[in-house]
């Protein structure tokens, strides 16, 4: 049971959603945009973060889009991880989503929710960062923005107050590129990542993005340059990649920072060896 009550509204259009946000704000409420709800319900039940109101975006057609349109794979923010995987439109994103929580939860967790939630791993961002996806947002005054993912996300999602993501567009050709997805957990298969690595191969070069190392996912072009350097041995590439890590890795119940560096090096080694042998 959730002890504290809240308002629930379900708009049919993007404009209705932003209007609802403005109205609730005027009434001195703190509204949350609501996708699958897993995180909001869990936090509300625990009493750690209770919204005054939730605005469920699942009734908005743009948020439920899952199609190829004008050379892009277009995915709505309310599309579930399971729907993305079943559609096979963006295989790397599908596989990445299929390793977040468990299958039943994947039938509820939405792409927008995974990106905008408070859980630090946000693994679905990795394929989006690698493919330079474009994020479409709707602002509180009914104005939309269209931004490259790396402009909207840098350590955290930089949404304006009352702004929400409603769609993600990705160039079809990049969704078809060769990729790798590796998720390392401390113990159980279904768990938060010690390290998740996604790679994408374009023009013979690897792009790499990581989750689990810090309190945010990241893509590093410096590390990519080191890994793609043609005059270095694998060991030299790994040493350079480790030296280019932006900070000392996270220490938490999943593992120490030192252990994360160990896993990072070994995982990267396997990926490079496989790439160079292909």
């Amino acid at each position, binding site marked *: *049971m*959730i002890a*504290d*009550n*809240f*308002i*629930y*509204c*379900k*708009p*049919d259009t993007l404009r*209705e959603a932003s209007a*609802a946000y403005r109205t609730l704000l005027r009434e001195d409420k703190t509204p949350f945009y609501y996708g*699958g*709800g*897993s995180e909001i*319900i*869990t936090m*509300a*039940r625990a009493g750690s973060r209770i919204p005054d109101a*939730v605005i*469920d975006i*699942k*009734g908005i057609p743009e948020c439920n889009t899952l199609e190829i349109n004008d050379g892009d794979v277009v995915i709505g923010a309310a599309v579930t991880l*399971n729907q993305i995987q079943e559609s096979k439109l963006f295989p790397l994103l599908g596989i990445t989503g*299929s390793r977040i*929580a*468990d*299958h*039943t*939860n994947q*039938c*509820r967790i939405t792409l927008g929710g995974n990106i905008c939630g408070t859980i630090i791993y946000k693994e679905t961002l990795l394929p989006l960062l690698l493919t330079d996806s474009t994020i479409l947002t709707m602002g509180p005054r009914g104005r939309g923005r269209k931004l490259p993912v790396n402009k909207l996300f840098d350590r955290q999602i930089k949404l304006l107050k009352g702004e929400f993501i409603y769609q993600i567009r990705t160039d079809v050709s990049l969704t078809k590129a060769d990729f790798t997805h590796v998720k390392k957990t401390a113990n159980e*298969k*279904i768990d938060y990542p010690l390290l998740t690595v996604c790679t994408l191969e374009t023009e013979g070069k690897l792009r790499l993005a990581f989750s689990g190392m810090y309190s945010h996912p990241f893509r590093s072009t410096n590390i990519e340059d080191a890994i793609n350097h043609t005059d270095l041995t694998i060991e030299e590439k790994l040493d350079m990649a480790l030296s280019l890590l932006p900070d000392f890795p996270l220490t938490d119940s999943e593992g120490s920072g030192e252990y994360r560096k160990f896993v990072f090096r070994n995982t990267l080694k396997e990926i490079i060896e496989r790439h160079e042998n292909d």
Partner: protein
Amino acid sequence: MIKYYNDLSVIELHVNGEARKVTVRPADILLDVLREQLGLTGAKAGCKNGDCGTCTILMDGLPVKSCLVLAVEAVGHELLTVEGLSGIAPIQNAFVKYHAFQCGYCTSGFLMVCHALATTKPDADEYEMERWLESNICRCTSYQEIRSAITEVLDTASRQTERSTYATIS
């Protein structure tokens, strides 16, 4: 037209083929409403955190953990609880045949996941089967028996699909 629920509201849920009216707060979770207002106690409260799967029901044919769904969200969707299987679903017979339970607390959740898998993906392979079933936990560790039960149901469902495909072609 925007739907708005503020305080206690009467909503209509479609559960096990019937329209049922309940009075809920927007913050009420579906599991509590099913159990306390509709008397459908098959879905069990376990972790209430989306981890254990004992509260699994089907929403529009797909498994969901009803502890992580608001009752108001379920309006307009088809819900199926273990009571809706009516004791005659193939997976229920297979569970009995293979003794796929001990204490039984997780059973309704497992039945719902297995039923959804057999219905939506009768050709599911070993990998897919494991992926769906790892959403649920059995602390008595009846996993091998549950696997045997769902394997038999999938084999039968798959053969039936093949037969109906053959019949359509011929």
